[in-house]
């Protein structure tokens, strides 16, 4: 019982820190709320889908930006997609980065795009680690026989 409450405390703290540091926003909480008995791993599914998507988009964009003649339209649509999915998941930092990225795209600023892409990539990795930690904590709580507080 003691372990459980400790874990819960840890989870709450961790979640709060994520929110505080701007990694996540409200939407993520809503996403978590969508989780119920019928789909217990909903958030995790969505998040993993998101990261897959992210990886794909980042690779696409990196390839597009390496070309001699950059197709900014293509990059832009990728950024748009990334922005949409990140806002759906509640990845606030990535979403904000996407806004800056989009501006770079609009002004056809290749260097800016490259910089943004690197940032996005870094943020993705960072967020992935953070969320992995978060889900691990949740798993631990569940395996300890508790339920995740909403």
């Amino acid at each position, binding site marked *: 019982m003691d372990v459980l409450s400790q874990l819960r405390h840890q989870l709450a703290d961790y979640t709060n820190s994520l929110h505080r540091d701007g990694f996540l926003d*409200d939407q993520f909480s809503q*996403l978590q709320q969508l989780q*119920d008995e019928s789909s217990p791993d*909903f958030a995790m599914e*969505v998040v993993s*889908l998101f990261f897959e998507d992210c990886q794909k988009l980042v690779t696409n964009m990196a390839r597009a930006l390496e070309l001699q003649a950059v197709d900014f339209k293509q990059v832009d649509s990728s950024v748009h*997609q990334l922005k*949409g999915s990140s*806002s*759906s998941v509640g990845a606030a930092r990535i979403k904000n980065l996407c806004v800056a990225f989009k501006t770079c795209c609009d002004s056809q600023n290749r260097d800016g795009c490259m910089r943004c892409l690197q940032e996005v990539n870094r943020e993705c990795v960072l967020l992935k680690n953070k969320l992995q930690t978060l889900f691990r904590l949740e798993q631990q709580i569940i395996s300890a026989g508790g339920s995740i507080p909403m």
Partner: protein
Amino acid sequence: MSLLHVLGFGLKLGHLLLLLCCWVVSVISMNSFIDSEIEPSNSSISAAAAAANLLGGKMWLKLWEKISVNSSKIHQVLEAKSVQKSFWKKLLRSWAVFWIVACALMFRFFNNQAIDKRKETLGSMCDERARMLQDQFNVSMNHVQAMSILISTFHHGKNPSAIDQRTFAKYTERTAFERPLTSGVAYAVRVLHWEREKFEKQQGWSIRTMNTVQQNPIQKDDHMPEKLEPSPVQEEYAPVILAQDTVAHVVSLDMLSGKEDRGNVLRARESGKGVLTAPFRLLKTNRLGVILTFAVYKRDLPPDATPRERVEATDGYLGGIFDIESLVEKLLQQLASKQTILVNVYDTTNRSHPISMYGSNVYVDKLEHVSALNFGDPFRDHEMRCRFKQKAPLPWLAITTSVSTLVITLLIGYIGYATMNRMAKVQEEYDEMIELKKRAEAADVAKSQFLATVSHEIRTPMNGVLGMLDMLLYTDLDVTQQDHVRTAQASGKALVSLINEVLDQAKIESGKLDLEAVRFDLRAIMDDVLSLFSGKSQEKGVELAVYISHRVPDTLIGDPGRFRQIITNLMGNSIKFTEKGHILVTVHLVEEVMETTDIEKEALSRKTLSGFPVPDRRRSWAGFRNFSQDGSNCSFSPDLINVIVSVEDTGEGIPQEAHSRIFTPFVQVGQSISRKQGGTGIGLSISKCLVTLMNGEIGFVSIPKVGSTFTFTAIFTNGCSKLSQSKMAYPEFQGMRALVVDSRQVRAKVSIYHVQRLGIQVEVVPTLDQALSSISTGDTVFSMVLVEQDVWDVDSTVASLFVNNLRKLDHQRCPKLFLLANSVNYSKTSTMSLDLHGPSTIMKPLRSSMLAASLQRAMGVGNKGNPRELPSLSLRGLLAGRKILIVDDNYVNLKVATGALKRYGADVVSAESGEKAISFLEPPHTFDACFMDIQMPEMDGFEATRRIREMEDNINVRIQNGDVSIEACGNISNWHVPVLAMTADVIQATQEECLRCGMDGYVSKPFEAEQLYQEVSRFFTS
């Protein structure tokens, strides 16, 4: 536009110059005309010249016409704006070249004319002289011939001869005037050699020869006939026997011995005509002369006599000596203008070596006229050559004409050039302006974009706030808490709408704002607005009240959002600047206000809501058009409702100097105000625009330190078409009666209005005493008594007495007591001091929902549950079991949206492209709705929806035509699946685009419960 002006100016100037040019040319032609008239030599020449000039004038006139026609054409071309720079440059260049060539030609033409004229003059003069000379010569010749007849008759015909030297000399001397050109006449007889001796004897001298004389022409002074050699033996001789005195020295000379004379003599006797010698130096005088010789025959010869016969018949030879030099001189003396002309006479028998007979060869002018002279000798040719003494004057006429024309045309060319330059410059400036304009427009677009972004960014956190409030409402709250939450929510929503206002200004500025026409409840809107400001007004202790005339219909058709915006703006201003007193919003019909008598108004204006003085509100609409012309608005159709709204406050007012610019955007009264009160300063300008859009007018009256009243009118359509009286919102209050205790008429009116809206009948009494008496004595049973706070506070004893007296009444009749309080502080203190039976406090401003809630709570009537269903619950009700298609290319979004909708119990199918969605939604299908992402690769949401609608239309038509049975299509005769757009961008334009392509609505992404509910509830009935 300035380009055309410049063009017009240039053309005008060119026109003027052309006129000038024509004038100059005409003057020149006129001058030349006059010049030629002055010329005295020959009238026919001048006439010809005049004709030529006239022709020239005509030519100019034609040219002028052409030019003016061309210029008008050019104008048209310019107006067509197909101006090409290079074309004009070429035109200009060719214009200059053309005119230079034309001027050269003109110069040549005029010069030639002058030369021709001169030539003609010279020719005529020369011909005249030649003719005269010839005439004179002929006269002389004739006379010489006549003399030969005389000699033949009187010398040879008579024997002895009737003429001797003396007679001859005398006769010839006296008839010398007949032969003006001869200087002397001599007669020689034909003497054959065998007759010589006899002849010499007879004459008394011997025949002499002329050869030596001619060989020694130098010794002319001591020329003596005695010194001449006697003639050598010849076959025949022709010694002179008779001679005029002037040539007496030739007597006895043998004419055949002189070279010239011999030829002459021989030719004369053979031809029988007068024969001339070539000019030669005469004996003695040594001047140039010619000798005319006639043969004298013994008998008359037939004209066709052979030369031989003639020689046979010859008796002698008569010679006339023509001293050409002096003679011509004499002749020319007689003629006028001899000094202008140089005359030369030549013997041109030998063409290559003409022999000069008269005149010098010194000349300056090359122009020469040759006139043939016929002196009757076919063997010899003579001609007269005339020249002007002076060189031809410079052709001033030609020079001036051509040069001035050239100057004028070059000037015109220069004007054209200048115009072109100016045009180019203007064009350049125009292009620059266009560029600037584009940049400005781009900046404007950027501004709009910025505003849109900012508003988007603000909306996001606001959505959080509103969402939380939304969720808070679902929790178990008591009525007051609910009201607070709703107020907070409404304020948040108002904030969002205020953000929209900033966008509105931009929209209004670009004239892109369109008003909606939907049914709305004016009173509900006023309540909303009121609740928006209630917090602030309570804080400040300012009384806020709304009064709507009962004549204003319950529902109107118009744009509620915009109407609300105007009211919010005006009230917002009022509450900003009012620290004490009240803010009263009144809504009337315009007709109503006009019908009110002045006295009533007077009374109204004196007794105000809070007792503070206010400016006369009538003055705020003094400038309205509808009021100035009486009754004009009465002619409106009954469906049009002309509403007049006044917002009256007792604030600090607007300084007089700011009145004029109060409706100018971004203008605030003084900088300090913006610092103190904030605000953008566009509220009033937006309001004015909106009022204008609603066919209304806005005006105000303001007295500093007293207050301001803003009044506007707006025209709506009556929404209560059917007479079904609006269903009672609060049936639980039906039939109740209330008593309002209020000393102020205006305030009481507001209270009555609100209480009456709940369906409660109201009576008003000014004091508590009267209230008590009407409760206790009257037949009517009052369910409640509403007491104004200041009436209650007047005297605490009266109040407690009132409460006690009320308690004494039996339970059925005992009305509930309510205090109408104004400030937050009061409600706290008063509730603390009052016991359980004391009055409940109702906070002003009064609004029907709040009033109803308070009354319900106090009286224990009505539904205990929340008046409104919880959106999430109702969403569940609406969506449970519905089959919904979600279309999004983004898997993450798809998953989240699916999860959200599944949570509400919907049966969700997802599709990741527009094409898939179309295949799913091909009728017949079982979907109840479709949520469609807008921005998708390949086929976006708009296109997909358009296709779906086409498909549906197709099938509907086919069902109607009976091509497809309804049964086959799931028993639905009219297919139309609701399609809702999902997008993150909440922009008006997107919304419009959604509707245009056949979408039914629009939800933001991620889903917001209330919005989702609003949209979905339009299609699904639970």
